[in-house]
């Protein structure tokens, strides 16, 4: 056995992009591999839960966990890995903030299952079969994880040591994080391993933003041709940049698309969506009630726009669904 620090990568409710982002390190990955010993990486090599359970507590120096927590299995793995890891790092928007899967917190669990297993256009399920948490077939019992009522971020399940933001985190942020871990130069526990200033600070279009910006109309990105040189917000397109933590070097604005907020808020803000809502509404120009209503209709889906990545970690966390009670069984 090598005495290099042991590292684990794990995924929960995620798209796989975070896993790919590790490969995005390109040749830098070789350096990382030289420095660490990867002991867990289900996406690349086969691991069984029992293998992890067999590890000693804190055997893994650090685990990078991506994806949100949506099922009982994910919850359990998060708890196991917390125990087996010295450092647990929430990797990427989903683990950090709940991420895109977190948008499902606008819908009741039953509605989601019904759509996915019965109503989606590509589904043919005339018997309306639903997955069961346990079933017996020819005397053998099989189980499936429980599908929770809501999506949670990693730190809503277990204590998280650090966060790597982004959808996915950029190779640079990952490399910086790994370097810091190896050198033992980590900031206080609970920190987000990215700058604590908003995106505008590193946006190439920063200087083109007028100081007296008043937004007369809001447009969605597909409705206008975005001038590649000008501040996107100044063109009336919602850009989450002012309310989003930097560190990605404004990758989206650099690619002529508005920031959608994947890195979450800076430390001074509790609710990213509320803050950009406040800022944009204040900065729009109409004064008459009807005109205000009309102009703000230009943002047709405030929840999906302002909370695209951070709904589960927002103050409200989930749409209120009064009739629903948590279900013990599927």
């Amino acid at each position: 056995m090598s005495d290099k620090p042991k590292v684990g990568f794990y995924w929960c409710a995620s798209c796989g992009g975070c896993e790919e982002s590790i490969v995005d390190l390109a040749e830098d990955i070789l350096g990382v591999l030289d420095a660490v010993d990867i002991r867990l990486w289900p996406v690349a090599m086969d691991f069984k839960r029992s293998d992890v359970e067999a590890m000693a507590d804190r055997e893994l120096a650090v685990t990078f966990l991506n994806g949100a927590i949506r099922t009982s299995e994910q919850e359990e793995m998060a708890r196991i890995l917390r125990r087996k890891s010295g450092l647990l790092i929430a990797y990427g928007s989903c683990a950090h903030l709940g991420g895109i899967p977190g948008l499902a917190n606008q819908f009741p669990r039953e509605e989601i299952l019904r759509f996915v297993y019965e109503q989606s256009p590509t589904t043919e399920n005339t018997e309306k079969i639903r997955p069961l948490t346990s079933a017996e077939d020819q005397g053998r019992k099989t189980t499936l994880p429980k599908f929770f009522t809501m999506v949670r971020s990693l730190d809503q399940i277990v204590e998280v040591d650090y966060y790597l933001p982004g959808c996915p985190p950029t190779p640079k942020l990952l490399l910086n994080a790994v370097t810091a871990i190896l050198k033992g130069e980590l900031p206080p526990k609970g920190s987000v391993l990215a700058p604590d200033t908003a995106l505008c600070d590193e946006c190439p279009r920063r200087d083109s933003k007028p100081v007296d910006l008043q937004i007369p109309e809001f447009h969605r990105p597909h409705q206008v041709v975005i001038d590649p040189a000008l501040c996107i917000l100044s063109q009336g397109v919602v850009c989450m940049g002012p309310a989003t933590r930097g560190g990605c070097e404004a990758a989206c604005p650099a690619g002529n698309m508005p920031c959608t907020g994947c890195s979450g808020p800076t430390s001074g803000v509790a609710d990213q969506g509320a803050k950009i809502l406040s800022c944009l509404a204040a900065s729009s120009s109409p004064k008459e009630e009807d005109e205000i209503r009309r102009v703000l209709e230009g943002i047709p889906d405030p929840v999906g726009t302002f909370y695209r990545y951070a709904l589960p970690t927002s103050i409200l966390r989930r749409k209120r669904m009064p009739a629903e009670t948590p279900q013990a069984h599927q």
Partner: protein
Amino acid sequence: MDRQQTSDSSGTWQPKIIAFFCNWCTYTAADLAGVSRMKHDSHFRIIRVMCSGRVDPQFVIDAFARGADGVLIGGCHPGDCHYMEGNYKALRRFHLLSRMLMSMGIEQDRFRLEWISASEGEKVRTVINDMVRRIRALGPLRLPAGLAELDGELKTREEEILHV
């Protein structure tokens, strides 16, 4: 004890409304309502701010998340803001925020913006009575309790998980 279950001495549920009042108009009007002994429903709690423009949407959301059944913002009439235009900013935020809250399942009647000038003590009374009435009709919002119940689906005891 459930912080949501605010009840009166007879045990029936009573709503809790958080009211952010501008120092210069609505807060003064509420004082005037007091000086004029205009009796009204007690189920609201005032937080004084200098301007309705200071009301961060985070405060409104936070109040709901901590158990408020309604949130009221009171500001100066359009054109009358003590700070020129803070109330317009409040108005625009209000429109966007109430739409956002509605899509998060918080009914329109639970969030309200009213222009009440310093002389409109009577309006404080009617607005509050009306808002309490509407919220009584809606019933409790129960956000923290609702979330706490949902968290019951988690396994917090590691022994259940780790079969070592």
